Every structure is written in C-alpha cells, then in structure tokens.
C-alpha cells in the first residue's frame, strides 16, 4: 500500500521471513527462466533445422535414448528435491511460533476482522503491532472460513470456524500495510480488507492504553453467569463440578490417569467439547456449548477464567513493549 506500482514487485517485504521467501521465489524464477530459455532455443533450432525439405542430415540416432531419458529424469528429480527442501525449511520456521511471542486474538466474521489486544483494546479491520516483536495471531472464525493474508509479510493462514490457529510474524519496517481475506467467504469477500499498522514499541504501548479498553474479564464474568456456568462451577453448588480457581496454567489430572496442561486451548476445548478431557473424579455431565456461545463471547469467557487467581500467576503475559 505504501509501495505502489512496480517497485512493490522487488520489495523485500516487511517481515523477518519475507526476505527468505523472496530469495526462494526469485531463485525459482531464475531456474524457470533458464529451463524455458533452453527449451525455446532447442525447439526453435530443431524446428528450423529439420523443417521438411531442409538439407540437414537425418537417419536413425547413433546413441540409445535411455541415456538421455535417465539424464533428464535424474536432473529434474535432483533439482526438484533441492527446491522441496528449501521450501520446507523456510515453511517449518514460519510454522514454529516463538515461545515468547506476543499474542493478539483475531476473529474473522462476515465481513470484518475483529481484533483484541491482550489488555482488552479492541479494533476492527485494523491491526496495530509493535515493530521488531514476534507477534502471534490467534485466528478463529465466527461463521465461515476466512483467510488472513498480509502480502508484505508473506504470511497467510485460514481462520477456520471451530478451532483456533496460530500464525506469527515479526515486523521489520514501520508503516501501513494491506490486509486481505483470501478465502472466499460470501457476498462482500472483496471488502473484507484492512490495514496493518507497524509502530515503534513505545508508540504501540501508548496506543494500547489511549483507546477504549473494555474490561473484557468483567464482561466475561457477566457471561459466566449468563450462560449459567456459575450455577455449577461457583462454590458452593448442588452439582459436582470442578472448581475453576487455580486452573489456568496448571497440570490438570484427567479421568484416564493422564495430565493435561491448562492453556487457552484447554479452556476452549472444555467449553466446546467438555467430554473430550474429563477431569479425574468428575462425571461427564457438562453440556457442550458448541454453536451456543459465539466466538467473541468465548474469548471473553476465557479472559475471565484467566483473570482468576492462577497457578502460573508468577509468570504473567510478557509486556508488549519489550523487544
């Protein structure tokens, strides 16, 4: 967006992974150009030299064809394997989210991007991120499949309803960059676009606190009552349900004798798929909230559960401004 026209074609992008993707892309362009040039040259030579009635010498081939066949099968296979390893190497790094990445929730919805920062600041179709920081987006969708595409970052990931998928990048240049939805999602698919604003960490920290920051944990508490979670999980209760204090960040013992780490994913699963992991000593009596609780409410509920005193309160969210 800030680099219009043909200059963008040779731009090195605005994320840490972009130069690596570009190096692979341009190597593929170069290799393809060489192959096309050789083929065009050979074809033209043969077409002219062996046109009907030309004086060129013909007759059967003196060497057996298998030598040529083996050569080009071997060469293409080796070349392809090389590019396979290169592409897979970069991809694996793109998929491995750094442990201390700064997490932002992104919900796709017909036809907007609904973005929540860790302190509760919410924005639509615009994503502010700090420069030089590993940023992890927790993508989910409220309705159909969307896809988060930041071309200048060379990053793309589908937002699939019913699950949360991580994608990460590290912005390397301040500026404003386009954001597109690239999975067809209905009538206004082409208007599900937005902007990504890369700011200096200080500016980002200031931005984070200046806007309206609805207390999502408080809203989560209201939802906790609204969806009748409190009826069973608040103590004291008639129904035998696991208490939720000290859950987040702990190792929860399960019915089958194993343990599970209670992170965001566990909390989400416990609400949507309560029979998937039953806590030791309890009956699988909780109903599923799949299709009942919206993606947006779900995020607030999880925020509330995380705000309760936790086992891991010694290790709080990493501060956004830290590089």
């Amino acid at each position, binding site marked *: 967006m800030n680099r*219009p026209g043909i200059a*963008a*074609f040779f731009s090195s992008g605005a994320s840490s992974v972009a130069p690596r*993707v570009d190096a*692979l*892309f341009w190597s*593929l362009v170069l290799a*393809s150009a060489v*192959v096309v040039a050789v083929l065009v040259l050979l*074809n033209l030579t*043969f*077409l002219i030299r*062996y*046109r*009907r009635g030309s004086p060129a010498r*013909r*007759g059967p*081939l003196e060497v057996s064809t298998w030598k*040529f*066949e083996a050569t*080009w*099968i071997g060469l*293409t*296979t080796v070349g*392809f*394997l090389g*590019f*396979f390893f*290169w*592409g*897979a190497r*970069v*991809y694996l790094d793109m998929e491995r989210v750094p442990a201390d990445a700064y997490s932002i929730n992104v919900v796709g919805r017909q036809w907007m991007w609904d973005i929540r920062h860790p302190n509760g600041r919410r924005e639509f179709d615009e994503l502010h991120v700090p420069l030089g920081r590993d940023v992890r987006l927790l993508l989910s969708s409220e*309705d*159909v*499949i969307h896809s988060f*595409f930041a*071309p200048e970052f*060379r990053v*793309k*990931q*589908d937002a*699939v*309803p019913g*699950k949360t*998928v991580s994608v990460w990048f590290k912005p390397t240049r301040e500026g404003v960059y*386009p954001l597109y939805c*690239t*999975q*067809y*999602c*209905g*009538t*206004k*698919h*082409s*208007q599900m*676009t937005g902007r990504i604003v890369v700011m200096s960490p200080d500016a980002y920290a200031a931005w984070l606190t200046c806007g309206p920051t609805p207390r999502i944990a408080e809203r989560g508490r209201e939802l906790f009552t609204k969806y009748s979670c409190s009826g069973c999980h608040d103590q004291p209760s008639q129904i035998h349900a696991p208490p939720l204090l000290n859950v987040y960040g702990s190792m929860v013992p399960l019915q089958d004798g194993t343990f599970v780490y209670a992170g965001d994913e566990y909390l989400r699963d416990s609400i949507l798929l309560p029979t998937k992991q039953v806590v030791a000593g309890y009956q699988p009596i909780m109903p599923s909230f*799949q*299709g009942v609780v919206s993606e947006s409410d779900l995020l607030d509920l999880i925020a509330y559960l995380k705000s309760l005193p936790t086992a891991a309160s010694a290790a709080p969210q990493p501060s956004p401004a830290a590089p």
Partner: protein
Amino acid sequence: MSLLVESSKAPPRMPSYLEAGHTVRSWLFTLDHKRIGILYMAAITVFFSIAASAAALMRIELLTPAGDVVTSETYNRLFTMHGVLMVWFFLIPSIPSVLGNFIIPLMIGARDVAFPRLNLLSWYLFMAGGILATYSIVAGGVDTGWTFYTPYSSTYSNGHVMAMAAGVFIAGFSSIATGLNFIVTIHKLRAPGLTWTRLPLFLWSMYATSIILVLATPVLAITLVLMAMERLWGVGIFDPKLGGDPLLFQHLFWFYSHPAVYIMILPGMGVVSETLAAFARKPVFGYRVVAASSMAIAILGFLVWGHHMFVSSQSVYAGVVFSLLSFLVAVPSAIKVFSWTATLYRGHITFETPMLYALGFIGLFTVGGLTGIFLASLAVDVHVHDTYFVIAHFHYIMVGGMVMAYMGGLHYWWPKISGRLYHEWTARIAALITFIGFNLTFFPQFVLGYLGMPRRYHMYPEQFQTLNVLSTAGASILAVGYALPLFYLGWSFFFGRRAGPNPWGATGLEWKTASPAPEHNFETTPVVTTGAYAYDAEGNP
C-alpha cells in the same frame, strides 16, 4: 503403421457415418461412437460459450477497481458459473468425450466402443446434469465458487446450491460410465497385432485418464451427497456448529479434484504426442517412457491433494509430505516436455495448424508446470495461495494446455470428422491469435498474484489496475481466437475441399479408412504389424 488387408476384392463401399441417417431421431438415438462424439461436441460448445461469456463479464468488471458493472452478488455468481461449467461441462468431457469417443475405436481398429448403449446413456446423463446446472443459473445462480467450500456452501450460501450440486453429481456418472467404457474398449477391442507397446500414445493417455475418471469421480459424488445432507437436513458433517469438520470437506473435495486436474491435462498430452509425431514425421522420442509417464501421473496424482490446503490449518507435517509428493508428480510431466522437444530432432517438420497448437501447448504447459513448482514449494505457496498467481497457473494448464490441445486435436482429426479440409491460413492465424491473446490475458495475473491480489475479488485496490487492464485486453483478443474456428470450421463442414483418407500423411489406423469415417469404421478388420509412428527415412507412413 502398415496393415494387411485380408481380402483383395474391394467390397461395396459403406456409407459414411454422416450419411447413415439424417433424421433428428437418427442422431438422438444413435449408438455410433462417432455420432455420440459429435453430440458431445455440440453440447460442450454451448457450455463453453456460456462459461466464456461469464468470464468476459468478469474481465469487463475488473477493468476498474470499483465494482461498477455488476453487484458483488452477481460477480460471485459469475465466477461460480464460469468455474462449474468450464470444469465439469467443458474441460472434463472435452478431449475424452468428444475426441476420445470419436477416435479411440478408429485408432484401435474396432467397430465401436465396448458398450455403445452405455455410451449413449453417458451423453444423456451429461445433458441431464448440464440442464440442471443451467437451471440453477437461470433460477438465480450459485455464489459458492466451483469448490463449494463448507460451511459456506452447506449453511450460509443462499444460492441454488442444491440444483448446481445435483447437476455436477449426475454429470459425474456420465464421467464414470465413459471411463469404464474406454478401459474395456482399450483392453478388449484392439485389432489383431495391436499390442500394448504398439498403442499410439493418445490411447495410453486416455487409458490413464479413464482410470482416474472411474476411481476419483465416486468420491466427488459422496462429497456432494454429504454436503446435501448437511444443507437439507442439518446433519452435522462439515459445519462445526453442528459438530462437523470443515476441513474434512476440503480433503474429500480435493481427493477428487486434484486427480481431476489430470483428467483435464493427460488427454491433451496424448493429443500433442500424436500431432508432433504426425508433423515431425517420426516416432515420439522415448515412446515407452512417455507412455509410462502417463500412468505415473495417474497414480501419483491421487497422492497430492493436500497441496491445496497448505494454509488451511492441516498438519504441518502433512503439508511437508504433500509438498514432496507434488514435486515428484511433476517429474513425469517434465519427461514428456523433454521427449516432445527431442521428437523434433531429425524430423521432417511442417507447420500445419494442429502442429502450431501443439507447439503452443508445449510452451504454455511448460510455464504452467514450472509455476506449479512454485506452488509446491511450501514457503512460496503460503504467499501466493488463493491469489491471482494460482489463477494464472491453472489457466496456463487448463486453457493454455487442455484447450490448446483440444483445438489442435479438433483440427488434426477434423478431416476424419467432416471429410473436409478447413482454410489452412485462416486456421493458422486463429491459432496465433489464441496464443497471443492467452499470454496477454494470463501472464499479468502471475504478477498480480505475487503482488498480493486475492482471487474472487469483485473490487480491488487501485495499484492493481494497470495489470488488470492488460489482462482484459488480452481476453478480448482471446475471444477472437476462439470465435474464428466456429466460423471457418462450420463453413468447411459444408463447403471445404474433400480431404481424402489421409490428408496429413500420418500413420495410425484412423487414417487408413475413408473420411468421413464409414459407419462401421473399417471395411475389414485391420491387422497391425508395426509399432506406432512407423515413418520411413523420408518421413512417409
């Protein structure tokens, strides 16, 4: 290919298949594979024209960044209609059902396909599917895209999804029946002496295609039925709100639709092998490897569907395996391109229209294949997936490859179909216009995709306009290239010069019999004594 005629006395001449009856009934109830081929040709020409008109409207809309010609609703229905009709009602039946039906029995020295009644039923199923699909368009259209991704298609879309899906479902049975017919025909009805290693390469590619048709199409049928169950009765299969998994649909859909890509290119490769041999007047270089590569593509093609899902949130390791297999499936295609180039070496080359289309195919298919390598590379695919880069890539294969091959094959066998010759120079110019128009339409789309323009966008940011204008300009040239053959081939059908049995001086059993082909193809069953493409040192058959 030389053959021995069993009887030296000339028997009374059979009427050509065109003279065997002139009533509508004699066409609609024909069991003759050649007439059924013509019925298919008429049908797919109509579907192609409808689908191409949709593309033309889209290209006009994309002249400007704003959505000013049609609404978003309409635009989404246009690209769905374009995709569904082009894939299932033009490309998949194009070479197999038109040229395959017409030529396969002639090439193997048979009187007809193995199951002529099943063959006619295939056409009726195809038409029933086509009419249902057309109904869904006339009734208001479908806005899901040809991929029908769930949960959009099963829960959210308000278009006539069920009618469209039912049309595709029914047409699928036509594909299965045709594939089965060809497999049995090639196995059981070959002329004496026509062993597997003497088969023309078109037959090898049609055999490989038929295997895919029979094995992959049922999965599409199952997928569409599951989608219908969710849409009509709310059975939770794909929609997570009903307890389903949206990615399951993608796995099932691409398990059919990736092999279907090879249904849409293998027959074209077969046509190119035939035309190159005929106009270079020598055997195809490395016949056995080229034949084997068709089979390798058919088999490996079943194992690469996940490369459509690298950013779908499927497992990272599945992505890596699918990437590796996708690189490997490109090897047999590369073998073919190199072998075709080597075929020209020491040939006696002339440049009739079918040859121009074949050479165009090699160039465009090579670009399409190489950009496929870009998409198989995981890290690059993440960036260009679902952008215009992908659109350009598969149009280079489907249109630059398959449509060029279909046009080439149509011109090559036209004398056998019509008994007449078209005006050579007009046809050459049309081929050239098609080639230029095609490149101008689709090459800019590679650049657009790399710059980040997503596919299926009714409106787009201003910086993409120049390349879109170029693309639309190319499309108008391409339209001329496609319209011209309708006129000069139509004209030649009635007024063209008589062709004679073998106007190109080609080998192959289809050129040993009269043009247009007699009702029962051969006066006497031919006997084959040599391999395919047995040209002498001077390039004569």
